[in-house]
């Protein structure tokens, strides 16, 4: 069953055509990535889904506005709230009583490695930890679809690899239906069941690639199949950014 479907979605901002006839879908339990160059319009798709931007053209079906939990590109943790109070924000907005919200968050703390940091302020956490907190804040909302906008994009290479490996394990255990936005080919191949490749702005889908590689894929020698898919994706991307030698 498709939890989410975009049909012929186009967006123009001011005079700029940003999205041009986007078609994509996400099935229940599926991990789908949107891969595209910076400035293509990836975050714009999420703004449509979360209702920050009104839909102009086309249709979004399968899910109402309350079926998404959104993790913005920067972590958007509130610097004046302790981690625990950042983590309960979504539940608080849903009207869940504080005690119950905290209990719900507490169930996930250990999996996210945050059990010792609940009374810290965001500024006291490392980049990786902040990202974990932002992820937990997303997951704990209990929405059917997780929208993750470049969740590891701001991290240094080492931390990013660690976080991806950790996240893959978490995802394998929980199987959240996930739509991930990224410009990192490796990340897309490592985490996804399916990948949509976007063109440069105005963005449209130029390739849809299934990744039939068994999990876990990270933390082990990279197999030839992964290499082949990565090479194919890279070529597709470079092709349309016009930077192919």
């Amino acid at each position: 069953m498709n939890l989410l479907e975009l049909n012929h979605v186009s967006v123009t901002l001011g005079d700029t055509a940003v999205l041009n006839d986007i078609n994509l879908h996400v099935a229940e339990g599926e991990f789908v990535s949107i891969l595209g160059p910076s400035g293509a319009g990836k975050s714009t798709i999420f703004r449509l889904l979360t209702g920050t931007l009104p839909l102009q053209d086309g249709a979004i079906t399968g899910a109402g506005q309350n079926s998404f939990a959104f993790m913005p590109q920067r972590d958007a943790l509130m610097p004046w709230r302790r981690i625990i109070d950042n983590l309960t924000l979504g539940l608080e907005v849903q009207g869940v009583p504080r005690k119950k919200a905290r209990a719900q968050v507490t169930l996930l703390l250990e999996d996210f490695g945050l059990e010792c940091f609940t009374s810290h302020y965001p500024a006291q956490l490392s980049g990786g930890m902040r990202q974990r907190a932002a992820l937990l804040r997303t997951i704990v909302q209990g929405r059917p679809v997780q929208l993750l906008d470049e969740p590891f994009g701001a991290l240094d290479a080492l931390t990013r690899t660690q976080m991806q490996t950790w996240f893959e394990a978490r995802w394998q255990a929980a199987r959240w239906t996930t739509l991930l936005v990224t410009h990192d080919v490796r990340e897309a191949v490592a985490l996804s069941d399916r990948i949509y490749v976007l063109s440069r702005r105005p963005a449209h889908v130029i390739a849809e690639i299934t990744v039939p590689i068994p999990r876990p894929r990270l933390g082990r020698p990279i197999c030839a199949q992964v290499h082949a898919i990565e090479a194919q994706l890279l070529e597709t991307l470079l092709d349309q950014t016009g930077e192919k030698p």
Partner: protein
Amino acid sequence: MQRPVPRQAGRGLVHGIPAVLSVASAFVIWEIYVRLSGISPLMLPAPSRVLDQIMLNRALLWDNTVPTLKATFAGFSLSLTVAFSLSVVLDFMPRVRRALFPIFVVSQTLPLVAIAPLVVLWFGFDLTPKVLLVALVTFFPMLVALVDGYASTDPEIEDLMRSMGASRTDIFRSARFPSAMPYFFAGLRISITYAVVAAIFAEYVGARAGLGIVILNAKNSFRPDLVLAAVVISSLLTLVLFAATAMLQRIVLRWRDLEERR
């Protein structure tokens, strides 16, 4: 882009040592000058003489500090209440903001020297005109601080909250209001100093008691030593209020100190 807001809030006495030293040496030089030149105390009293006057007139000074303090607090409370209520209205109605803001700007261009006598004329010699003048002077800085503060909210946090299904009121309470706190305290520290000056000036123009009246009477009886004694007390009063807001800021904005220490 978030505009930087001064963060220091009376942090550490160590930072204060150079300031204390320079003030102290200014007083020493002043004292030496008065003693060596033999200038008349009717022209320029020595700091030691001013200090003597403070001790001699401490009952008088204290009795007149209380009304000034009352006017300051009452006026400040009034302006805070109005500024906050109005800032909320303006935040929810940007169109009203654009319509009203010019009026507030004009209210700030009115010279206190001209307005104070009129306000005293209209409202008499009681507390009311002082409260109104203190409120007039402090209202606008507080309003601007709050309105700017709301506008400084990280748009990504607002988008996040909207994605969670938050209402405009939720967003105001949980994101915009806390985001404005650093600005609020920056405004508070400036306003509190204006407030004391405004109260004293309002008394000077017309009152039954207050530091402004002490200054007026001392001036009229050619007592610069007593004028300066009252000035010292009013400075101390301002410093105490300033320190109190700084302390409050350190408690409320603890998260900012952490951020800076990184």
